């Protein structure tokens, strides 16, 4: 078991700064997901924790011990790679036991540990096979087995499911979650897939351009994003961010959208007259009624995406597009005129210029 702390970590490759002053605390036994778009620095950060990249400044501590200058093997970590990184010339058993062999463990003990781990991952029948004789899912399980057999303080996962097909990804994701529950080992998991992040993580760290945008439990980030980047990065379909201006009327504030619709925002004290905002509402918080109706956004359905379990409506209002999502099937079709009614209590308001969240009294 181990906690991981990053203090003011910076990393530059020549003149390019890729990690900016990252500070992060990962509790003992926690499953932490680093998420962000390509180039956000999430893999670099993971490699820094692993000791595969040096920091330009700052410190990395594992279990309270400063490991910044230590080699990977001295950090008591194990890593699962996106490409599996199994040694092609070694059998499954040799791959799993390689680290133990290097550590000088007696052969019998290695064999026992490998067998035990293989049993846990249902890899026993494959122990004598070479990686090339395994399917993608089996290779990924071997890769995890290689990490588990060492019983490290921290597991590091670098986009481990990226090379798997959609069905297998769901299955292995479940296996990773089960393993974490069973072993309780601190895990740091890098992905760009927000579904993986939301389903696996106890803590999600959203990164952009090498900076931490927000860190916290998945639902906190989803429901309470600090800016438009976090709001739009989490959630499929993405949150609607509609340009608007604030209009104050007595003690109440309202958002005037481009099409003229006026939608309530809440208490006037949180806003200024004419303030440019982004009116944020998640698709599942948008109601829909056929025809025109007061107090909503008039729109025409542009497309209906029906996955069977979910229904997504993409509609065009005057000057912007709004999506709505439902769990139940509705008799809606493209070209239909509708009124979209946001759930005002779920609205998230952002400053149009900075993208930062404007907190309303009712948000807290």
């Amino acid at each position: 078991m181990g906690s991981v702390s990053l203090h003011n970590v910076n990393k530059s490759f020549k003149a390019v700064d890729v990690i900016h002053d990252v500070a992060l605390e990962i509790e003992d036994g926690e499953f932490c997901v680093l998420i962000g778009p390509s180039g956000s620095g999430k893999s670099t950060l993971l490699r820094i924790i692993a000791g595969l990249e040096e920091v330009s400044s700052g410190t990395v501590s594992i279990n309270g011990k400063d490991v910044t200058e230590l080699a990977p093997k001295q950090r008591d970590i194990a890593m699962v790679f996106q490409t599996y990184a199994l040694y092609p010339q070694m059998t499954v058993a040799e791959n799993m036991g390689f680290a133990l062999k290097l550590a000088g463990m007696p052969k019998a003990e290695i064999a026992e540990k490998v067998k035990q781990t293989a049993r846990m991952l249902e890899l026993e029948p494959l122990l004598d096979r070479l990686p090339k004789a395994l399917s993608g899912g089996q290779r990924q399980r071997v890769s995890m087995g290689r990490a588990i057999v060492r019983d490290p303080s921290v597991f590091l996962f670098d986009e481990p499911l990226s090379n798997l097909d959609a069905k297998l990804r769901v299955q292995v994701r479940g296996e990773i979650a089960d393993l974490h529950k069973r072993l309780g080992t601190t895990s740091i998991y890098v992905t760009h897939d927000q579904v993986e992040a939301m389903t696996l993580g106890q803590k999600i760290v959203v990164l952009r351009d090498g900076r931490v945008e927000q860190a916290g439990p998945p639902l906190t980030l989803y429901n309470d994003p600090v800016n438009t980047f976090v709001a739009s990065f989490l959630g499929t379909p993405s949150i609607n961010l509609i340009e608007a201006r604030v209009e104050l009327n007595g003690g109440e504030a309202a958002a005037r959208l481009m099409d003229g619709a006026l939608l309530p925002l809440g208490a006037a004290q949180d806003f200024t007259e004419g303030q440019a905002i982004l009116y944020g509402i998640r698709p599942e918080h948008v109601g829909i009624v056929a025809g025109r109706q007061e107090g909503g956004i008039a729109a025409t359905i542009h497309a209906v995406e029906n996955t069977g379990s979910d229904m997504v409506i993409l509609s065009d209002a005057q000057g912007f597009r709004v999506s709505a999502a439902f769990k139940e099937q509705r008799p809606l079709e493209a070209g239909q005129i509708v009124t979209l009614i946001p759930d005002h209590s779920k609205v998230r308001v952002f400053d149009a210029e900075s993208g930062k969240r404007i907190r309303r009294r009712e948000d807290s």
Partner: protein
Amino acid sequence: MKMTLPQRIARGLVYALLLIVFCGPFWGILATAFTKNTVQPGQLVLWPSNPTFDHFIYAWSEVKIWIYLFNSLFVVAIATVLQTFVSALAAYALARKRFRGAAIVSLAIISTMMLPDEVIAIPLYLILHAELPLLHTSIYNTYAAMILPVVGWAFSVFLLTEFMKAIPRDLEDAARVDGANELQIFWRVVLPLVRPALGTATIFGFLMIWDQYLLPLIAVDDRNLYTLPVILRSLRVDEVLQQNIFIAVTVVATVPCIVVYLLLQKQFNRGLMSGAVKG
């Protein structure tokens, strides 16, 4: 698609022609070496008349070809092992390590391929004669003089570098996380993965060293240290020696190359093939 009879005949003829072109000369020297009747210089027979081992026995006992065969085998064995090992180490550094001046080092190594042996003959001769510090002697007229100059070979370094570049970096990282040090990564992870290339480099290196003529000529002047190419040249101009015996010595000089090729054939072919599709 099934071939028609004329197509099959045409294909057979092409194969036969290729076989004659490539194997004909070798068959000629084999047949001549086993022929009892004396042949004239420059003449080969196509079928051995009165087959005999006499020429080989004479070459072994009178010409003492075993001395030169031993010299050649000793030099080629040690030098090939050293050359492959040194090339693999150099290739590992060039392919897997980032260091200042790597491109210049690489270029400098490759540029040595452009220098003909004759150009470096005199400087090499001087170096081989130079007195070594502490030992107060030179390596001239020793096996080392024939071995050390061929230990570093640009072709072998270049070949292995290209193969090592193709190994995913994740494997190295995985080994590092698993606790391997630099030497263990090289020995246990990288080297087994470039086995086909090692086979190819070994065969080419073996042939290059086996065929060395100029180097032994300037590295030693003791006849007992001569290798087969040098003694072949000296026998070639020996007017007393029967042509069949000279040809028998030639056959003996060819056999190790064939044996090595057959031993490493699998790796050699895989090395060439994977090089072709690596992209």
